[in-house]
């Protein structure tokens, strides 16, 4: 589904991703952890070409992020993204936010798009907030709308970049529950998070990044309970 082949990302002279090789199969729930600045967000953003790569190749469903514009747009439609800061469109209601992708990307007729959006909002538990503007919603509600917005384009993989980091602790659970339900529904997911409990329970694979490289890659429960890598052990002690 997603293939990193010696992917190198540089900002100026700084190497952010250093010849990363990584294969992710459909249905996997990959949790990415690692110290700040290790390149987690960058790795995620390379997948949907929000960052361009300078070396190697990265294929999503057989398409290259280094392909043409229309290839990149197709990749983006197949890889939905959820941001730390939600990034909902403030001029649109929750419902319009969710209907936005289908309408503007897929050209779905308005009525159909709104109907689908209503169903998706119900799925994330926000049927009664459809006509609220983002500014009128709590952080947790906004993030759930953002998840619904990404799902509306019917992606094959969902990318989450610290989806709960901007939320107060008491609002995190509602977002994590939506993500868990999504995982149980079979969605392929790559999640950058510090929620170790979520990684253990929902993840099928844990990746620990360090200085632009994948340092550890394996089953979450094992790695969390018995981290062999000393730096992973130290990292886990800090986030716990």
């Amino acid at each position, binding site marked *: 589904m997603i293939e990193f082949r010696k992917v190198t990302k540089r900002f100026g002279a700084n190497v952010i991703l250093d010849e990363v090789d990584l294969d992710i199969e459909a249905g996997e729930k990959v949790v990415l952890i690692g110290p700040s600045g290790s390149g987690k967000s960058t790795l995620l953003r390379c997948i*949907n070409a*929000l960052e361009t790569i300078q070396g190697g190749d990265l294929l999503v469903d057989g398409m290259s992020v280094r392909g043409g*514009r229309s290839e990149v*747009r*197709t990749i*983006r*439609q197949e890889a*939905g*993204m959820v*941001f730390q*800061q939600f*990034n*909902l*469109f*403030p*001029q649109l209601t929750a419902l319009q936010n969710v209907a*936005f*992708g289908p309408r*503007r*990307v897929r050209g779905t007729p308005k009525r159909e798009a709104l109907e689908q959006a209503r169903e998706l909002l119900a799925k994330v538990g926000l049927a009664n907030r459809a006509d609220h*503007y983002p500014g009128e919603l709590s952080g947790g509600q906004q993030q759930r709308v*953002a998840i619904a*917005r*990404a799902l509306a*384009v019917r992606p094959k993989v969902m990318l989450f970049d610290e989806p709960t980091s901007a939320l107060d602790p008491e609002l995190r659970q509602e977002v994590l529950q939506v993500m868990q339900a999504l995982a149980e529904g079979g969605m392929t997911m790559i999640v950058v998070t510090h929620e170790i409990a979520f990684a253990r329970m929902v993840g099928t694979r844990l990746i620990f990044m360090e200085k632009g490289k994948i340092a550890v890659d394996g089953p979450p429960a094992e790695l969390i309970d018995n981290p062999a890598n000393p730096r992973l052990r130290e990292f886990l002690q800090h986030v716990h």
Partner: protein
Amino acid sequence: MDFSWSVIWDAMPALLAGARLTIYITVVGLLGGLVLGAVAGLFRAFGPAILNAIAFAYVELIRGTPIVVQVMFIYFALPVLAQIRIDPLTAAILAIIINAGAYIAEIVRGALLSVDKGLREAGLALGLPFWKVLVFVIGPIAFRRIIPPLGNQFIVSLKDTSLFIVIGVGELTRQGQEIMAANFRAVEIWTAVAIIYLIMTGTLSFALRVLEKRMRIL
């Protein structure tokens, strides 16, 4: 000093004709200025290097010179340079278009760049081409932020038309000047002229405040 109402009464038809011309120059000039400013502002914010540079040069040239010099150039120098005759009214309207366009370009550029980068990325991440992100995400948000500074520019441009007295356009200030030259009633005439300007700018301010209220600023 005796304040004579009849002087104002007699001058009114001419002053109102002047006010009409002032409004005409302002409205047509600002419509043109909006188009020019939107395009130049867009180039400044997201345009390719060459168009960005051209827009930058235009804005700096206009902001760095007085509007009186600009209209004099259009009216007196352009015919010499390009062998085209321009009547005073056209020169006045052109001056507003070019002058307001430059300031509006800066307003548009600022508003476009003030829109959170995360929103642009959210639009792109859905698979939209950049132009659609511009039309459906950045544009609508920037538009709301443009209204207040734009209103300010409208008022400035309206008052700037009084400077076209230098090329003899019969707008409000010029009318006042001519009547004054004939009857020497400075107090009455300039009071009346000032009040007519106030009514025009006041109406504009009021309309903009209503628009601002009706539109949520994001």
